[in-house]
């Protein structure tokens, strides 16, 4: 599909000015101000793209003009591509102003390929876009027909006949090759087809022959999809837009149920799913959900969609006329027979993780993981609970092989971690808070300190526990920390440290790193 007036259509849509006024976009090309795009009215007035701005003003003094915006155009093209996914999941970009669709097997859903093209053009012109469509066996032929041809649908096998009368520009050639061919008197694609290949390839390089072969289908040319093509998808279109939340969710439920049946046949479960809502007003909304394990229980997946849906605030006054639910990632599920005796708390807990992750975000539902590090903030890290199990083996320290303490037998983690663990705080500040402390030099515990504008007297202190930062990692000398467990006169227990030894820095600073129980 070729959006032939993309840039000017964009401006017209924004400013709502009449279509019949000439409009041109101006940009700097090789240090000259030239017209880069214009609308139909401007073309009729005798302007051409590539003309210098001064000439254009001389021809048409009251010309409307604006600066070009390639980024805005690209964004708009992306949006249109989003919208076009209603026709086929495989949509590729062809910058600056084209889109490529693979509609193999999708035509009959709209009553034939010609009907699909008609529907597409009607809707786009309703949005104010000037578009042309070509449907052919190959990307090259479709491109040529949409830009230079008259027919919309090229019958299968008739590619050569249709291409022959088209100008050489229809072959997507670089300007130098094009100019060279025209100089030789080869004006149409047909002229090139009948000439000996070797001579042309020797003169213009292999690129020319490749383009010709691609257009004729002798060489494969795949479309690069914008979004990964889903493993499975189900969709539902409506003759009239639907806007009630309950109705939308109900449709999503039906589609999910259909997908779950398919998943079950394939012996798989979904890890990531997406629901897309194609708005009648052109907007496309999407909801994505992730699960912590492969799932194919429709009820649970629907609850995830429902939670996510409730958190959305869309402006859908025109409603949606097509809904698609697709499985983006699927994994095989081993069928497990239910155990009669075991407590069945596994699935429910995993569902809780999914629901919390769906509503609050995956980075807000975390599991602590122990690491083999002696730096307090690295010894225990948090990972998103939905993917923690996949990372667990790497993060865990090697199993402790020494004597098992009674506490480990009771169910604690003594078997996994060092015995210092119980001297650690129960709360840790992400950013240690600076304090002003009075302490005996060089490594006495603090006697008095000031934190959060309150002065604290130290009643008892334990320490120092000296922790050297991994200087071998960064290569720079890192200060050594001296940690003290401190009890204030008021009874609060805190974990303080001095950042650096007196031999390392002149005046080390003190920090509060956490609360002890």
């Amino acid at each position, binding site marked *: 599909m070729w959006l032939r007036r993309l840039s000017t259509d964009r401006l017209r849509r924004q400013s709502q000015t009449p279509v019949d006024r000439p409009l041109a976009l101006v940009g700097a090309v090789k240090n000259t101000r030239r017209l880069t795009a214009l609308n139909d009215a401007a073309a009729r007035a005798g302007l051409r793209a590539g003309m210098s701005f001064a000439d254009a003003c001389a021809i048409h003094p009251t010309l409307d003009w604006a600066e070009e915006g390639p980024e805005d155009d690209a964004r708009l093209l992306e949006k249109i591509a989003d919208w076009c996914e209603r026709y086929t999941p495989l949509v590729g970009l062809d910058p600056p102003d084209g889109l490529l669709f693979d509609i193999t097997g999708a035509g009959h859903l709209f009553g034939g390929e010609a009907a699909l093209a008609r529907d597409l053009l009607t809707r786009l012109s309703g949005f104010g876009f000037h578009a042309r469509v070509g449907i052919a066996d190959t990307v090259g032929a479709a491109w040529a027909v949409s830009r230079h041809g008259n027919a919309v649908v090229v019958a299968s096998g008739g590619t050569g006949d249709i291409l022959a009368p088209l100008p050489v520009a229809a072959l997507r050639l670089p300007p130098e090759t094009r100019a060279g061919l025209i100089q030789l008197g080869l004006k149409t694609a047909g002229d090139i087809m009948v000439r000996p290949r070797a001579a042309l390839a020797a003169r213009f390089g292999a690129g020319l022959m490749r383009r010709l072969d691609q257009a004729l289908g002798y060489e494969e040319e795949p479309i690069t999809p914008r979004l990964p093509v889903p493993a499975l998808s189900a969709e539902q279109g409506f003759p009239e837009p639907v806007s009630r939340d309950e109705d939308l969710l109900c449709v999503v439920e039906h589609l999910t149920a259909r997908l779950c049946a398919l998943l079950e046949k394939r012996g798989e479960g979904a890890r990531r799913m997406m629901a897309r809502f194609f708005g009648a007003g052109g907007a496309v909304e999407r909801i994505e959900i992730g699960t912590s394990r492969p799932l194919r229980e429709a009820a649970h997946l629907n609850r995830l969609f429902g939670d996510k849906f409730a958190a959305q605030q869309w402006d859908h006054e025109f409603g949606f006329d097509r809904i698609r639910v697709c499985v983006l990632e699927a994994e095989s599920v081993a069928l497990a027979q239910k155990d009669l005796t075991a407590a069945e708390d596994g699935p429910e807990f995993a569902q809780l993780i999914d629901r919390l992750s769906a509503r609050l975000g995956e980075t807000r539902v975390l599991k602590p993981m122990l690491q083999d590090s002696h730096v307090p903030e690295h010894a225990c890290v948090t990972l998103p609970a939905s993917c923690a199990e996949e990372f667990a083996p790497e993060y865990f320290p090697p199993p402790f092989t020494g004597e098992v303490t009674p506490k480990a037998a*009771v*169910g604690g983690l003594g078997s996994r971690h060092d015995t210092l663990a119980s001297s650690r705080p129960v*709360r840790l500040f992400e950013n240690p808070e600076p304090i002003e402390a009075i302490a005996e030099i060089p490594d006495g515990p603090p006697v008095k300190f000031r934190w959060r504008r309150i002065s604290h007297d130290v009643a008892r202190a334990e320490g120092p526990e000296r922790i050297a930062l991994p200087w071998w990692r960064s290569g720079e000398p890192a200060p050594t920390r001296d940690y003290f467990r401190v009890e204030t006169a008021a009874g609060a*227990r805190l974990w303080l440290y001095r950042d650096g030894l007196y031999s390392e820095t002149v005046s080390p600073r003190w920090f509060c790193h956490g609360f002890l129980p």
Partner: protein
Amino acid sequence: MGGRTEEGCISLGTPDAALQGGLSLSELHELAPASPFQHGASLGFALALSVLAQAHDGAIVFVQQDFAALEAGALYGLGCALFGIDPTRLLLVRAATPKDALWAMEEALKTRGVSAVIAELAGYAEAADLTATRRLSLAAQKGRALALLLRQRASPLPSAAATRWLLSDASGPSDLYGGLGRTAFSVTLTKNRRGPCGTWVLQWDDDGSRFEPALPRVVAAAPFDRPAAAPIANAC
């Protein structure tokens, strides 16, 4: 392990009499630090209660509002070792707003396989009003999990919680090497539906995973096998 009694209560030791058998599961309980620097005690006590409530390797869910984490620090997995909690059985939830935190707590309470849910809200936690706390106690009743609501400041507002506690660290005796000694909490019961209020000092026995009443000082055992004041000459 676990301190669950037959009637669905957890035993705290001396306060059990006032609570008529112990702290009941399937009810909401509110904790708050007695002073702004006692956040360690409030979370420590909550974790201790969660361990006592833990049955069948159930999970412990800790929901924390972002602002509460800035004020008092986030839960540190290694620190849980003191209470014998396996960090892999912990689920941490960070909520941006008090509303999200309360929602997450309610969802967690309704889930099977969760044995305790702790939610910490910043400041007085005004969002946890009478209606919200009522919802939570109903969810706790259904789920049979221990529901603990941590306020960062003791709130004077009414609440549907069964009990309200004020926590601070109790200064116990030093250990043999002059260190801080064992963890002890000074707990004050300020609201109790089932009986009188009161103040107790509870010491956490980290080997046995249970509370025991704290003795004020280490004292020598009473001399049963010899006279109280045996003359030195006789001893030699």
